[in-house]
């Protein structure tokens, strides 16, 4: 699904990523770890197609429509409600039976009762749950998640654990995290980036 050789990225004179090799087959679960500034987010952005590598080769075996990406930022509009945000993305991603799918995800991540509230009134944890709903909305074949446990409370983290357990083996998953122990048992590929 993802094959990378000698992947690197420079921002001007600054080297953000260097010499990363990655072989993630379909159905695999890759965990990316490393200290702050080691290039985890850059690697994930490159794999998602949001940035171009400065060096190396990368092949991602799915089209843009089949990538679900969770970033540090939730990528949702604060002045829209959860429902409006997911409706918008559902339209753009051509999600079949969109309203049903949106409802299922909001229910699963505990946001159904707040679905009509503006995102600006959400806590950081609720916004992260919404961001997960957005990333999963179109049932992507490749899930790229940057620090998915950030800001989640214990209940939210358990919901995400359950989601990973459900998707493992069926979807290809690439996750960066500072808490590798939590998903260590799911990992089929481990990438440790150095600072």
């Amino acid at each position, binding site marked *: 699904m993802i094959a990378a050789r000698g992947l690197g990225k420079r921002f001007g004179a600054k080297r953000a990523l260097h010499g990363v090799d990655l072989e993630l087959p379909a159905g695999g679960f890759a965990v990316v770890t490393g200290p702050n500034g080691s290039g985890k987010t850059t690697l994930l952005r490159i794999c*998602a*197609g*949001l*940035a*171009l590598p400065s060096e190396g080769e990368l092949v991602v075996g799915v*089209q*843009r*429509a089949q*990538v679900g*990406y969770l*970033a540090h*930022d*939730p*990528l*949702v*509009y*604060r*002045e*829209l409600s959860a429902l*409006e945000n997911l409706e*918008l*993305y559902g*339209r*753009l*991603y*051509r999600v079949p039976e969109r309203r049903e799918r949106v409802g299922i995800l909001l229910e699963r991540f505990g946001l159904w009762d707040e679905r009509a509230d*503006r995102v600006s009134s959400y806590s950081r944890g609720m916004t992260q749950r919404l961001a997960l709903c*957005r990333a999963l909305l179109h049932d992507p074949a490749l899930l790229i998640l940057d620090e998915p446990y950030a800001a989640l409370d214990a209940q939210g983290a358990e919901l995400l654990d359950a989601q990973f357990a459900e998707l493992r083996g069926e979807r290809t998953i690439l996750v960066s995290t500072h808490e590798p122990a939590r998903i260590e048992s799911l990992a089929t590929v481990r990438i440790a980036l150095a600072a």
Partner: protein
Amino acid sequence: MSYLADVRALTRKDLLLELRARDTLPAMLLFVVATFVVFHFALPAGSSRLAASGLLWVAIVFTALLGLGRAFVPEREQHVFDGLVLAPCDRSAIWLAKSLATLAFLVAAELVALPVFALFFNGLRASTVAGVALADLGICTVGTLVGAMAVVTRARDLLLPLLFLPLAIPIVIGGVGASVAGDPGRYLGFLGLYDALFALLCWAAFEYVVTE
């Protein structure tokens, strides 16, 4: 059909955001009306209609610049641009929707501003109104593309006018010509040609602007 549905959904989103946040339109309205008030008192008594026409176009261009500067603020503040770019829709739909929303704000501001101008500066020719309508199209198509380029840079507030104003000079020439010339037809034609040409260029170029 799905392209138009994407444009509709994205335009609706922009109008809804403005309806809730009220960030852009009130600022544009206040600016354009205040400009006319200042011009009204700044122009010497007995100034020509030609001078007033020039001032109208100065006010329109800078009011549009105010709106364009805010066009991508929601996407920038919440980094939503990444989410939109990743969606499988044609990326030019993002540009078209944003242009339409900006056009709606500019036209709404002008619906108030033009009567105020007519009141302060002794009327308004039909050819001026036609020129403004055509100029609006060019301003929004070009300005939205430039706004998307500027929004990802740190010097966006400087870059937007620097890139936009040179591209807006033909619009000002066409607009002023349509306002003051005895035969405004050729200036209106020029504005129409500018609109068509730059709409096509911007539509084709947007994909490359949002791709690293």
